[in-house]
């Protein structure tokens, strides 16, 4: 057990002792957890907002002494302002943040930390990792690599495939890197990789063009389930039948439904779940609701979503 953890435990037990001696009549101190996330501008962030709001409701119902405040921001600058507003009016016991960009948010988060606030960072890490007490993130390289391994195995290690990539970002680069690194060791030829900006419409157009350009395509990887829906529509319209697999990633509910139904072209997906924000909020709440110290890095795995485990990843009420 680390020193901090032991100290936290000590503090907590002392606090609970105080609470006990007070006779339980006086409720524990009210604790405030602020959650700062990007606004719902596309499917995945829509999912983040949904899960953050669910977590707020569930935690406030379960632990009356914890108050969760969820704030969404449409840009990095707006998020910096939101942090200032949140910490100006009250003392924050914890901040759970999914930063827009690592560079711009590192300074402002450090400011918040200087008041003794517990910091949990989700998805995109800060440039100075010592600021964060807890780091929860998905594994983008694994998203690409696991999909590639499955596809390579199913294609018997050879064939011709096309790839659609998202918006030029670290997330996209890592997925593509994970995918291409695995494919390098096979006889599978990647015919083309182009940007479609994680946009259904652009993916539809790009797939139409791929189909016009290449007379034979064995499989498609769309890097994201939103784009996959555009790809599938283009394939359907072309009437081409040689495409054995069209795969995405992220675990969008429409695609999980296809996986559950045993779709022959899209039998799997790979999670990069927006629910990671919920995991982080729960882990943070554990600090204040019970004696469950939470420090360190928590990397979500990217196991294949198959018909057998699809229920775990299926949120019918979520917008994503």
């Amino acid at each position: 057990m680390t020193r901090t953890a032991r100290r936290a435990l000590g503090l907590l037990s002392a606090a609970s002792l105080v609470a006990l001696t007070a006779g339980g009549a006086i409720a524990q101190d009210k604790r405030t957890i602020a959650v700062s996330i990007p606004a719902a501008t596309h499917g995945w962030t829509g999912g983040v907002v949904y899960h953050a709001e669910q977590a707020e409701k569930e935690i406030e119902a379960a632990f009356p002494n914890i108050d969760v405040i969820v704030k969404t921001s449409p840009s990095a600058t707006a998020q910096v302002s939101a942090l200032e507003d949140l910490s100006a009016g009250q003392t924050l016991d914890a901040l759970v943040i999914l930063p827009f960009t690592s560079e711009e948010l590192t300074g402002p988060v450090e400011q918040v930390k200087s008041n003794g606030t517990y910091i949990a960072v989700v998805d995109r890490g800060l440039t100075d990792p010592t600021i964060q007490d807890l780091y929860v993130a998905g594994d983008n390289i694994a998203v690409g690599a696991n999909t590639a391994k499955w596809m390579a195995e199913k294609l018997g290690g050879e064939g011709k495939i096309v790839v659609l990539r998202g918006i030029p970002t670290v997330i996209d680069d890592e997925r593509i890197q994970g995918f291409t690194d695995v494919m390098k060791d096979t006889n599978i030829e990647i015919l083309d990789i182009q940007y479609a900006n994680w946009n259904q419409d652009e993916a539809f157009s790009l797939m139409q063009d791929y189909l016009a350009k290449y007379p034979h395509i064995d499989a498609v990887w769309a890097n994201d389930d939103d784009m996959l829906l555009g790809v599938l529509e283009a394939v359907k319209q072309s009437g081409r039948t040689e495409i054995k697999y069209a795969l995405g990633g992220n675990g969008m509910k429409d695609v999980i439904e296809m996986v559950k139904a045993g779709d022959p072209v899209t039998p799997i997906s790979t999670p990069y779940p927006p629910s990671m924000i919920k995991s982080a909020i729960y882990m943070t709440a554990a600090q204040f609701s019970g004696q469950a110290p939470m420090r360190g890095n928590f990397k979500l795995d990217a196991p294949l979503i198959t018909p057998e485990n699809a229920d775990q990843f299926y949120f019918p009420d979520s917008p994503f």
Partner: protein
Amino acid sequence: MTTVTTEIADAPRRIRWADMGPFIALALVVLIGTLINTNFATGTNIANVVTRSAFIAIIAVGATFVISSGCLDLSVGSMMAFVTGVMILTMNRLEPTMGANAILVGAGFGLIVGALCGLLNGLIVTVGKIEPFIATLGTMGIFRALITWMSDGGSIPIERALRDPYRPVYFGNVLGIPLPVVVTLAVVLVGAFILYRTKYGRRCMAAGSNADVARFSGVSVARVRTTAFVIQGLCVAIAAICYIPRLGAATPTTGQLWELQVITAVVIGGTLLRGGKGRIWGTVAGALILEVIANLMVLSNMVSEYLVAAVQGVIIILAMLAHRFIK
């Protein structure tokens, strides 16, 4: 009266090279496409590209009115997403009672919503006397936020039962011509008739070339401009009707940055951005040029995926320079 007749009689004899600019540019891009890639001139590819350009072309016809009357509409992309969302929700709501007829009612409702959105823009600009750039920048944010709110940031899918009866509107064809292309042609013909052959069209140009002079000649500039925005709204709704069956959903990224493509298509087509001159057919050529360039970027392997946007930008600027040079 005499001057009008001579003008009409004179017109066909002179070939106006300046007006031919966008068509020459389109022919050139197509020729280059055919030469550098064997897959370009195939029937399927041409059909795909022309069908895809339908949305931008239809919206850009409306934008030709707005721009030639001396205004600008930045909200078309967001408005398109908003109208799409409203239409899908209406159709889904009506589907249990009306079956496939819900599509017709939903589409009619979409046209009304589109026209109202245009009217809102128009009134803010003319009655509120706010610069069109700022007014429509405001409504752009409003429409985008509304669709995001309606979808909770996710997507608004159309009912499964409506997918099949609605699908032909994008994927079907009449005598081998894809339906969206037929719709575009109809919109363009009506648009060209209104702009070139009616009193309203001439007033539009007058309001755009010099609002004060037009006002002194008894043209109600405010009414002309408001009407132009309503036409724009209707065009957006028509594009939305053709758009829904393609992917069957509206998302917060639907129509993102389309306003820029629309304005580019209009200007490449020979319409003056400061108003006073509108070219409907040129606008269509402009929309096709943009889509063909994007298509060629994917088909040819010459350009790195990182530089595609730069090459597109260079081609657009070159096309405009050539246009000026021909003049």
